[in-house]
């Protein structure tokens, strides 16, 4: 059995044949294998969309919940059991659109999560409407005159708010994406990994078009330099820059204070408090 086979799932894959999502799945399996991750300690959390189906396609614990709500669900899972490796697999519609508020506030909490965003610049499952990252001017299902909304730059937002790690990969380059995912999963705190994932059904450009434009992070880029990371992400070529963009200063992660008092056990292992404790809480309401 090859190491990636440990994650084999029998579920029927519902993606289009040839979808770059397969490259993301491969990269994730390889990263998890390299980290010697066991499926029992892995929990994938997703919302709705094509990316959100990913947890079905590898052996793991998973919660495939509501559109846009993977991050809060993952926060609850992580609060309840920090021993799990928790990964959010999501698309930009799910995570930057419907659930954008949750990603913003996750940046404040700094949970030990990897948020893997398949960015295909389109709503694929609902057949090609504009997403929060669709370029201005594209003609889309609900924008027959051309899109007149500007795209969101969430990697830049994540840098601004000191995400633990911000990286971008290319779905057609699973080897590099694997390396970025290994970094992301092993970094404590919130790691945002955006993946350029051209949609072969609804995007206007073929994969080759993207391949021509993809460029690596400049060799002299210092991921610890926040201003440089912001400048890079704000530049015209920033949209197609792949690699490790930013590594934030270490800071406390979600639940650290709680864990320092109560340990890293799953909350499920704690028995209800003894009656005496409840009696004591109630006694505060007896006056003397």
């Amino acid at each position: 059995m090859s190491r990636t086979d440990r994650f084999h799932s029998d579920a029927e894959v519902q993606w289009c044949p040839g979808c770059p999502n397969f490259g993301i799945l491969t990269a994730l399996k390889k990263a998890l294998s390299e980290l010697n991750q066991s499926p029992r300690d892995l929990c994938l959390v997703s919302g709705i969309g094509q990316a959100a189906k990913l947890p079905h396609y590898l052996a793991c614990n998973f919660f495939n919940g509501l559109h846009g709500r993977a991050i809060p669900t993952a926060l609850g899972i992580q609060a309840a059991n920090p021993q799990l490796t928790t990964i959010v697999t999501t698309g930009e519609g799910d995570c930057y659109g419907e659930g954008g508020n949750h990603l913003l506030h996750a940046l404040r909490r700094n949970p030990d999560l990897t948020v893997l965003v398949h960015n295909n610049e389109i709503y694929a499952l609902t057949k090609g409407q504009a997403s929060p990252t669709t370029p201005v001017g594209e003609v889309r299902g609900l924008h027959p005159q051309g899109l007149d909304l500007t795209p969101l730059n969430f990697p830049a937002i994540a840098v601004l708010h000191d995400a633990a790690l911000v990286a971008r990969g290319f779905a057609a380059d699973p080897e590099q994406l694997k390396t970025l995912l290994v970094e992301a999963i092993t970094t404590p705190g919130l790691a945002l990994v955006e993946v350029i994932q051209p949609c072969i059904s609804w995007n206007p450009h073929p994969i080759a078009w993207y391949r021509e434009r993809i460029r690596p992070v400049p060799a002299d880029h210092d991921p610890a330099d926040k201003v440089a990371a912001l400048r890079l992400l704000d530049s015209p070529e920033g949209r197609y820059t792949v690699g490790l963009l930013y590594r934030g200063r270490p800071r406390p992660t979600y639940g650290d204070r709680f864990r320092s008092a109560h340990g890293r056990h799953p909350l499920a292992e704690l028995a209800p408090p003894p009656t005496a404790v409840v009696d004591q809480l109630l006694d505060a309401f007896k006056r003397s």
Partner: protein
Amino acid sequence: MMDCNIVIAGAAGEGVQTVGEVLADTLSALGYAVFSWQEYESRVRGGQNSVAIRVSEAPVNAPVLEADVLLPLNSGAYQKYVSRLNPGGVLLAAEGYRDPTLVVPFREIATEEVGLAIAANTVAIGALAGVLGIDPEALERVLDRHFQNKGPELIEANRRAARLGHERAASACRLADACPWSFPARDQRYYLTAGTEAIPIGAVRAGCRFIAAYPMSPATGVIKYLAKHGEQLGIFVDQAEDEIAACNMAIGASFAGSRAMTCTSGGGFALMVEAISLAGMTETPLVVLLAQRPGPATGLPTRTAQGDLLFAVHAGHGEFPKAVLAPSGPKEALHAMVRAFNLADRFQVPVIVLSDQFLSDARFSVTDFELDKAVPESFPADPAAVSRYQRYALTPDGISPRLYPGQSEHLVAADSDEHDPDGHITEDLAVMVPAMVAKRRRKGEALQRAMRAPEAYRSEDADELFLSWGSTRGAVREAVDGLRAEGRRLGMIHFSELWPLPEFDWPTGKRLWNVENNAGGQLSSLLARRYRLSVHGSILAGDGLPLTARTIRRIYNEQN
């Protein structure tokens, strides 16, 4: 039986709550059953608010609007509340609004005799104690505790303020021969608790380990209590960015094996509704405390209502089992929280506990919480007993063995899509989809069999029954007793578990009245649906104030 209602009224920020709290604590410490409730405007300063303190020898735990003693802290409060003063009641004020008024110039005494202007309220508290014949030393003990962090000088100044107020009011009482009350110390102690305290303590008792919520009156107190005490007790507390996040966070924590809850009011609950449906579909236990306030929309943020019963019962798209409970007071609320977690765990469903602003904020006297009858029960599966784990295994009662991720080698998968027993997406309309629909229905039937019948009070020989639910119980019982004294043969059937409604042997040949603090008669529509009952008449309010026995009796008598 002695029954005295003291109303303190004034602007927000003027100290109404503090005066009320100290007086309630003093009477409780003397061994009396105190019931206090407050009504306030949705503002931090100004407006006119009131606290009512009803004191008796045994718990009544029902509100009355009318005052035996009224203390207005300003002239606006006097004008707003004077009509509530009972004939023969005592008006205590800093100036002579009308004759007779017991005049105690709080501010002048504080400034000139104590030398501390901010002690005016303590003068007022002392004066109230004087009117009520309360031993000044009993008041002093409570005041000392109240000011214990303020230093010895302030403690002494407040003692002096209280003594002066007490002396002045007591002598005014003697001159006017107006104050018949006295409260000698009794050998009895009640818990004096609000729902907003008993509910989180119930969650602690139940073994809740996670709460996420977004602040919203009148539910905020629940997460506030747990934010203060929870971390020490091993409860993970998170203030979510919105109610959608809060509910999904609780679902995530519960999926990962922790007992988890959220709390909110109607508007926030509206945002949670999709997640309620998610809990139903993924069969994740979830407890939601829904503290009602009048809607629609923002409504009256600081007032009370029973307007969300049907909303709670119907919350969530699609069809799935859920339970709705509605406790009537703090003791029942503590028990209801334990019950809610137990039901959620056993049937793997969302459970909604309905309280309201009245139950949240009013302080009730409780003799004994009977914790031995509020016992957490959980229903975990044994990973060792499972060979091939299926989260949604089809079983006779629809309840599948529940494991959590990381617990064992067994992988746990939950899906909001229609799914197969393994938790994978299915569109097998011929076999799998109907099997899952039927599974959830079987679970709902099992849940219905577990629900508790309503409480019957004086119903055996009754010709007429009041049908009620939730926090109006005390007022309805009091109305039944009052109307019995008038010769009416009335009884009460009171629901604390509202959905799914259990089998119930309805007595026949009685005139039925639904009594609810809403305008639409929501309980009566549920009963019509479930039992094909029709009511003879409705006693409904829905004006933002708690329902009182006097209001119930008035509306009843108007219809007879």
